[in-house]
């Protein structure tokens, strides 16, 4: 490829086709498929625009290079043709003339008179943290622009809903551009700093731990302190007199907790600081921080008052542990009923490790979500639901960059995909602004024929090599449901 910049202005000459465009840095050639990126010729269309894919060639049918079709959706050894690199007719938008097929409202073709907007997409972000990120429905910003909102909390996680058509195209130009950039970066597994109105600043990167107000999360806690008591009470029975699970949210105390009562665990005369919620459950035992259980303490005894001499007795044992098991200490009361730290007995150490084991690494996960319904409704096929039905009936399998997707029930083809399962750089954008994502429709050759496919134009996989990226996947996507 002729990519040497010419001296004067870094324009390069593309030799992808005989037009041989000169392309300036940051610009694309006549086809809009190849561009000059920092003096390098790059292909900028390796992503099929979602809706255009459905409307303009969504099906990529993998064919084996040799032998007879064996009926498998993907032929071994898992060579799977993705939409990445398949190209799109989008660049031919001028201004996006758009042809729908016949018979919709008696119209044979449609010329679109303004720029096409394919913006029905966004990301759902799950951030594994118990730290307060912000109130529900609070605006989430990137570079000061509103790009989404905080949605419901899930267990051990905070959820954000980012992007969508209103932020992409319903607000200011800058809002749309910043939203588009943030969505693309998140989808391409790059870190993005988000600020939440009335809440925290969090750095989100798919597959990595969230960084909340400058502090990286490490583990999701197994549950709140109270829940931890509930889960492990039986394992502690008979091995220790008292257990305190230190937690920023609800600190649990075994002997007072319902779980302890049910096991007939005796009172220990323990005295907790903080505000008692219900028996054995305490709020605000300490300020939030990065110490034990999300509090700022480094000495767990600081959350205790003096033991009640009427109930406590010398020699009583106590385990103090954080909700993640990262911190733990074992104490024995001396003659003055003061806790003295001792080596944790092996059997209690086991329970601490069990807590750790149940705390999964804290991650940010990003699901890209987009809908391909609009174009279908516009009558891309002569029967607008045909492709949808084919997908819903599992005759046609939908993947995104080869990754499995979840297709929402109901109308249209709205799907979600874990962005970490796509190849690097799989997402692109158009200045509309809108995101460009790969999507593939895979179906049996026989079904393709049954749908009126023109078999004489079917191309063997081998002919795609050289101008199409192929993706090796470790296991073929599971076959869709068997045909009825």
């Amino acid at each position: 490829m002729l990519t040497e910049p010419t001296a004067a202005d870094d324009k390069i000459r593309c030799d992808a086709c005989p037009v041989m465009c000169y392309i300036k840095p940051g610009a694309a050639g006549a086809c809009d498929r190849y561009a000059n990126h920092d003096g390098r010729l790059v292909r900028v269309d390796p992503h099929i625009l979602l809706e255009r894919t459905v409307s303009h060639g969504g099906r990529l049918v993998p064919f084996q290079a040799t032998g007879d079709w064996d009926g498998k959706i993907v032929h071994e050894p898992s060579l799977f043709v993705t939409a990445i690199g398949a190209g799109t007719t989008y660049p031919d938008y001028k201004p996006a003339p758009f042809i729908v097929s016949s018979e919709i409202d008696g119209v044979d073709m449609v010329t679109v008179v303004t720029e096409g907007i394919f913006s029905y997409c966004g990301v759902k972000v799950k951030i594994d943290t118990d730290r307060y990120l912000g109130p529900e429905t609070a605006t989430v910003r990137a570079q000061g622009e509103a790009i989404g909102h905080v949605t419901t909390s899930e267990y051990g996680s905070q959820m954000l809903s980012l992007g969508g058509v209103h932020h992409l195209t319903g607000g200011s130009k800058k809002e749309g551009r910043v939203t588009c950039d943030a969505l693309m970066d998140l989808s391409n597994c790059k870190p993005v700093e988000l600020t939440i109105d009335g809440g925290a600043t969090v750095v989100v990167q798919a597959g990595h731990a969230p960084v909340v107000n400058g502090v990286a999360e490490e583990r999701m806690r197994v549950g709140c302190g109270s829940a931890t008591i509930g889960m492990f009470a039986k394992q502690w029975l008979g091995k220790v007199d008292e257990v305190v699970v230190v937690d920023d949210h609800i600190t649990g105390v075994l002997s007072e907790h319902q779980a302890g009562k049910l096991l007939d665990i005796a009172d220990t005369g323990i005295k907790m600081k903080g505000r008692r919620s219900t028996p054995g459950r305490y709020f605000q035992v300490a300020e939030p921080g990065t110490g034990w259980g999300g509090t700022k303490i480094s000495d767990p005894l600081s959350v205790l008052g003096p033991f009640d001499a009427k109930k406590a007795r010398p020699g009583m044992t106590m385990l103090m542990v954080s909700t993640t098991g990262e911190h733990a200490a074992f104490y024995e009361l001396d003659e003055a009923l003061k806790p003295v730290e001792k080596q944790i007995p092996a059997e209690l150490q086991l329970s601490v490790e069990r807590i750790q084991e149940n705390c999964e690494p804290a991650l940010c996960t990003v699901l890209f979500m987009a809908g391909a319904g609009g174009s279908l409704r516009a009558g891309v096929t002569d029967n607008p639901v045909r492709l949808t039905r084919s997908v819903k009936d599992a005759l046609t399998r939908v993947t995104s960059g080869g990754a499995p997707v979840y297709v929402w029930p109901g109308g249209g083809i709205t799907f979600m995909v874990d962005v970490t399962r796509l190849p690097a750089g799989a997402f692109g954008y158009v200045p509309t602004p809108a995101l460009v994502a790969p999507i593939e429709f895979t179906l049996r050759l026989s079904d393709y024929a049954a749908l009126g496919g023109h078999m004489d134009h079917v191309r063997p996989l081998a002919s795609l090599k050289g101008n199409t990226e192929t993706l090796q996947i470790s296991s073929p996507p599971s076959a869709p449901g068997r045909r009825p």
Partner: protein
Amino acid sequence: MTRTPLIRFLADGRRLNLQDGPIDLIVEASGSPANLRAAYAAASHRFTDGLLDELCRELPLLRQAADPARCLLQGKVARRMHDAVAPFAAGCFITPMAAVAGAVAEEILRAMVEGARLDRAYVNNGGDIALHLANGEQFTVGLADLPDASGLLRTMVVHADDPTRGVATSGRHGRSFSLGIADAVTVLARTASQADAAATIIANAVDLPGHSAVTRRPACDLQPDNDLGTRLVTRDVGALSGGEIEDALEAGAASARELLAAGLIDGAALRLRDEMIVVGTKTVELPGLRAPLRGPVAEGGLHV
């Protein structure tokens, strides 16, 4: 680099997509299965039979202003491009490239119609469309606001006994640069290449020269080898008053009426922001309504 033209059927299993370099065609025909097969084979064959290479061999000349009096071009498609722009070349700067999309669409359609007996066929080259209609057949062309719109702004019916066999759209949003500010000008003409050239001319005429809200840049700053050279092309259009929109559209409509009177087009629909002017005798309908000849598009038509 070896390039492989893409030949495939679209998701509906019916429309053929041909793609090579900057050319991207959507093709559909109706007729008997045998004739369809023959037509698509002919289209694919012509497409891969040096179509792009032929054009590129003459690219330097195709990028120069057309001489209204003579044509030095050799290739069939190149000469068709020249013929389409020649009627305008005396009055303004225009290169054969203004008709490249329409001319390519026509060439593929010609190959199909010569190779098969078809009831109807179209070749859509990024919005520049060549039509074939056997006796009694018709095509309905819709104008939509957005591609995923569920309704249409307007529809135009092209009957076999109409002279129209080409539809083209030009405007400032597309891949090609525009000297004007029209969002879109859709033209009906006898051939796709003629429609393509005329749409370019009319879209250029929808303009507010010197207006501060219009951002323009030399074409060569954006694409070094663009045929428009140092001419200023529209990059952005800011806020315009209702009167300004009307003025700009009216300037384009005046151009369209001249072309209509000269027999160069059969009709045109000009759109800027929410305003649309329709020029020509062709029946243009709002779905469900008769279209007003000019004025704001009805609300129901906009929110499609």
